[in-house]
């Protein structure tokens, strides 16, 4: 059979992608009467709405309706986990870009033209436009979160060496190539079909129902594929879909809401930018004794998914390192900016930066090799419990570290780079090595559940539905491989169905790297149940023992005493149907053994850890700050990969996305809080030339997951994004080369040419 577990199968839609046959929501046929929606946004970051005059918009050509907060039959609230996050602002606005109302017209151009006619008067009030301002004013979206172990202040007081550090990282626009879009089609008696480019169909269903004031069972949310998500279509997709559903409910006509790129970037949340301050205590050897850290996240104007992001940042502040005494506080700063949200890594990438900065400072202080200090501080036997109480099992850190350093020829290249730098006054090169430990599971235990629905038809073809969404990460093919493996049939017998709340209810978002763990687990259960039924019936029918019914190679062999039956899988399906055996089964999976107490921040939040390590080499221009990644070597633990081709793509794509976050991708607001980087002409994600010309990627070999994941595979979506941290480390290494004497380097991210040049000049100024 072809395409079972662990096969390097292609993406199931690859052929349709390249021929243009893969349909995204904007490509679906529009029934006659379809209306197009355009949003009216607040131009002001904070203030009181004095007047919103929609008269001109209402009477503009083609306009069918203009809807505001008072046209919402249900609740004007699109919050994912909090409350009071209105779809349309009421009374006050909290960021420039906040939706105020929506125009519905017969064409998109007419809707947009009418939206521009809205007369808006907002009495501006002082706005909080930075983390620093929020810290000063103590405005939070939630109470500060604290993770502690031991007695950090006392341990710091005792420590032979202490250093403080401060730095920042910026946020990140998701820049999914397909912008936010939803298409709502009203049915009879309040039914509504909502096509939504969402990572979370169930939340789309809930938010639509909340806005419309109806039961969940009236709403069906569905999506075949997303043109990219990266976390940006988790909570944000829900309000976009909710607005479309509101329009469809109001007019009784199909309504499409597609955000043009600028509106998308202005109205939706991004990765959280962070400000860090810490003090680290360590011994003469460079062993960390204590860390006292403050992480302040820019939450934006509302709660959104910030609690989870802050929790993950705090639970990844240790990263690969054992910190005996820790006190870490996470502030969720309320600012008058876009409400930041999930983005691949979900706080993890921000969390792991702290120790990298600290260790480099420690190494400079002690005059020791920073890589050696990293390895010295790894989790190890006897030093293997995280600050939140979870033991680090299956510790692959020594392996990934050694393998990445070998792949990256670190020793040889360090010498080479030193020689280069000694004779190159303008251009400097630098090398960075980074170890990663990343916890897999949603931090909230209840989210770690999934369902699947598998039908076997009487020709032996199989329909597979599960709660996960396909956004390019290859989830559909991976889960289909699981089912193929169970039935031992060719992969092409399995048809992945569009994700729909009608097939599988009450699902979790496809996020936190858990897509194939959870949905693969659920599909495995469903397929196994069907196989069990088919086996039992075959045994009964042919008078064989169940153990003698073997599924292999698209066939089923029944070794009954005295006879040897061989049926095709389809023939057995037909036989089962005649024998009145149900050939449809649901499967349900919940991650075992996890628990978490958010109040104490203790527990075992993660089913397992994923490990990785990376080496990156960069060059900087000390005259302009221009910089470039010359080479990267990555080793990533994928357990026993379900699909090495897909996983390789995830690793490479995540690395480059992480590189973009740390280097060229800069969000820029003006002094009135208006985002001015609102499209690819102003917000620069990496292009093909930015990818390191030498990029070696290895999946860690012979490393089946120790815990019982689906076929011992591991998650891969997020961890490799953090491998790009080595680029940031390498940049600081190159900046350090601008001066012979050691000394601390501060390099805020994103390390644009301007920031690199500032760091170079700060360092040169010291000499």
């Amino acid at each position, binding site marked *: 059979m072809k395409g079972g577990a662990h096969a390097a199968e292609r993406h199931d839609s690859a052929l349709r992608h*390249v021929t243009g046959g893969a349909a995204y929501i904007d490509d679906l046929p529009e029934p006659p009467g379809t209306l197009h929606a355009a949003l009216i946004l607040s131009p002001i970051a904070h203030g009181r709405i004095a007047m919103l005059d929609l008269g001109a918009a209402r009477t503009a050509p083609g306009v069918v309706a203009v809807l505001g907060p008072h046209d919402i039959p249900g609740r004007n609230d699109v919050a994912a986990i909090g409350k009071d996050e209105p779809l349309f602002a009421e009374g006050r606005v909290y960021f420039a870009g906040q939706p105020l109302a929506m125009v519905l017209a017969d064409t998109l*151009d007419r809707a947009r033209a009418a939206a521009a006619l809205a007369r808006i008067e907002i009495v501006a009030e002082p706005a909080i436009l930075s983390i620093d301002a929020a810290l000063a004013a103590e405005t939070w979206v939630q109470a500060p979160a604290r993770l502690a172990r031991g007695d950090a202040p006392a341990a710091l007081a005792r420590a032979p060496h202490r250093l403080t550090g401060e730095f920042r990282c910026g946020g990140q626009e998701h820049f*999914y190539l*397909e912008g936010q879009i939803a298409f709502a089609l009203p049915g009879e008696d309040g039914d509504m079909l909502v096509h939504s480019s969402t990572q979370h169909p169930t939340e789309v269903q809930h938010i639509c129902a909340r806005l419309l004031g109806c039961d969940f069972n009236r709403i069906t949310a569905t999506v075949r594929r997303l043109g990219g998500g990266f976390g940006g279509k988790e909570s944000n997709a829900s309000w976009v879909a909710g607005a479309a559903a509101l329009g469809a409910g109001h007019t009784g006509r199909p309504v499409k809401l597609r955000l043009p790129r600028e509106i998308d970037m202005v109205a939706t949340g991004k990765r959280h930018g962070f400000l860090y301050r810490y003090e680290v205590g360590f011994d003469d050897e460079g062993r960390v004794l204590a860390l006292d850290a403050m992480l302040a996240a820019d939450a934006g104007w509302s709660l959104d998914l910030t609690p989870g992001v802050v929790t993950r940042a705090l639970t990844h502040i240790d990263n690969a390192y054992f910190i005996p005494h820790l006190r870490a506080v996470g502030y969720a700063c309320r600012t008058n900016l876009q409400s930041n949200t999930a983005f691949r890594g979900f706080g993890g990438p921000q969390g792991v930066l702290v120790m990298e900065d600290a260790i480099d400072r420690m190494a400079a202080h002690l005059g020791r090799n920073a890589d050696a200090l990293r390895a010295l501080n790894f989790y190890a036997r006897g030093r293997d419990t995280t600050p939140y109480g979870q033991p680090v099992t299956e510790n692959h850190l020594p392996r990934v570290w050694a393998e990445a350093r070998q792949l990256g020829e670190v020793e040889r290249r360090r010498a080479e780079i030193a020689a280069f730098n000694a004779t190159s006054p303008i251009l400097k090169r630098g090398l960075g090595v980074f170890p990663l430990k990343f916890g897999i599971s949603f931090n909230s235990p209840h989210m770690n559940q999934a369902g699947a629905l598998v039908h076997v038809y009487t020709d032996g073809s199989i329909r597979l539905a599960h709660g996960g969404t396909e956004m390019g990460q290859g989830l559909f093919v991976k889960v289909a491989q699981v089912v193929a493996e169970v039935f031992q049939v060719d992969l092409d017998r399995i048809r992945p169905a569009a994700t729909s709340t009608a097939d599988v209810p009450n699902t979790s978002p496809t996020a936190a790297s858990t897509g194939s763990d959870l949905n693969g687990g659920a599909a495995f259960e469903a397929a196994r149940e069907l196989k069990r039924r088919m086996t039992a019936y075959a045994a009964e029918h042919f008078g064989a023992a169940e153990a003698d019914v073997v599924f292999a190679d698209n066939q089923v062999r029944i070794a009954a005493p005295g006879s040897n039956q061989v049926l095709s899988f389809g023939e057995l399906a037909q036989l089962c149907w005649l024998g009145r055996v149900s050939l449809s089964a649901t499967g349900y999976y919940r991650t075992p053994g996890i628990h978490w107490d958010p109040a104490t921040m203790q527990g075992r939040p993660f089913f397992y850890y994923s490990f990785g390590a990376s080496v990156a080499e960069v060059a900087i221009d000390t005259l302009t700050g221009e910089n470039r990644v010359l080479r990267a070597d990555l080793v990533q633990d994928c357990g026993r990969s379900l699909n090495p081709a897909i996983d390789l793509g995830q690793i490479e794509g995540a690395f480059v996305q992480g590189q973009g976050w740390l280097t060229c991708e800069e969000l820029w607001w003006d002094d009135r809080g208006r985002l001015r980087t609102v499209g690819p002409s102003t917000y620069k994600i990496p292009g093909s030339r930015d990818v390191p010309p030498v990029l070696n990627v290895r999946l860690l070999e012979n490393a089946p997951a120790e815990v019982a994941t689906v076929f011992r595979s591991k998650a891969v979506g997020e961890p490799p994004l953090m491998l790009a941290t080595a680029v940031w480390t390498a940049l600081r290494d190159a900046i350090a080369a601008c001066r012979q004497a050691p000394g601390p380097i501060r390099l805020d991210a994103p390390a644009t*040419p301007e920031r690199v040049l500032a760091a170079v000049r700060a360092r040169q100024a010291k000499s």
Partner: protein
Amino acid sequence: MADRIRLLLNDAEVETADVSPMTTLLDWLRDTRGLKGTKEGCAEGDCGACTVVVERRAADGTMRREAINACIALMGQLDGASVRTVEGLTGSDGAPHAVQAAFTETDATQCGFCTPGFVMSAFAFAAGGERGADGAIHEALAGNLCRCTGYRPIVEAMRRVAGTAVAPPPDLSALARGGDACFEVGGHRFVAPTTLAVALRLRAAHPDAALLAGATDLGLLASRHRKPPASLIHLARVPELHRIDRVGDSISLGAAASYADATPALVEHWPALAPYLSRLGSRQIRAMGTPGGNLGTASPIGDMPPVFLALGAALRIASVRGERRVAIDEFFLGYRRTALAPDEIIVAIDCPLPRAGEVFHCDKLSKRRDQDISTVAAAYRLQLEGARIVGARVAFGGMAATPLRAPRTEAALIEGGIEAAARAAEAEFTPLDDWRGSADYRRTVAGNLIRRLGARLASPARAVEVEAL
């Protein structure tokens, strides 16, 4: 006259009756023709999701086959051309084209939304018969963004695509139009004269109409801002505006010659322009965009003004009243204001050829190396006697509300040397302060670019840019 736009769409002849000439090609493909394979990712020419391949006969008679951005191309521009979309690559039997197959074989698609655009850029690359060197591949891909794959497999697909035989372009003779065209639909008027005389007459008669060259600036009014000009005079069909000739000691560059057309002649005389021009926009942009349009837009951060300022170019400007020459130094009057009168058209840009002992360098700083607008652009034309600088023209973009010369830097180069000139460059401007760079950064790097110039002059063979490593 009320002509109809005629074009080939995936080899089939199409005549449009009620489509506004200001409709973007992307909207027409998706909404009117139902070809949904071509995607909108940004509607500003920057992401490449809308890339299609256009085959057309250039004004010099040669056949062109280029990737362009459908989102900012206007239908009126495509009269007489062949447009090929991702659907038009697939064989009649539904089999994928070799270029498409390469993308599946290398796992070069994830979410797939960017893919049709990449496939079309790859098709143009294959049709161009280029070798699969990485530099050429990156150049060919600079106008396409992918957020999922990290590009490595796409670059791999491009290596396979290089040298793939592709069918020759279709015969366009049936679409050839004898003379001028005028497309008028729904209050939109798009005239395409075929002689300079007619163009000038139209310009005089319709001062309210906008001139259109490649539409890589003006097209954004239709795509992103959804408000195209009501009346356009299209200059791309005027042969006189396409000429690239040597006139005496100058190269005369027709104002409507595209970057792609102008590059070989410019690079022949000023090799430093090769990397510089390869970073101006993307292939899609350079296929349509023109240096003339770059001057017409008069953006303070355009890349050509510093070059023309440093070269000491002269603009030939014409109207029905006659032709005049305007020194480039006199052309930029203020923020996006130029010396052009309402009835005038830039005909050509005359660039004096390098003399013995002359060197030319230029630099572009941007957040991302490819397809980015300059934070600071600089160009230097120096007259050397031995190692001594005896003449200097230095110009910057991004340092003020207009592109401009740096007279104090020039003087310091001659009188005080590199370090003095660098200090002068740091001091002589009040630069922009925005998302591309703070005023401080711009000031600092203006000086440092002069120091880089010094390093180049001191040891021409040594790498002074990270890109060279």
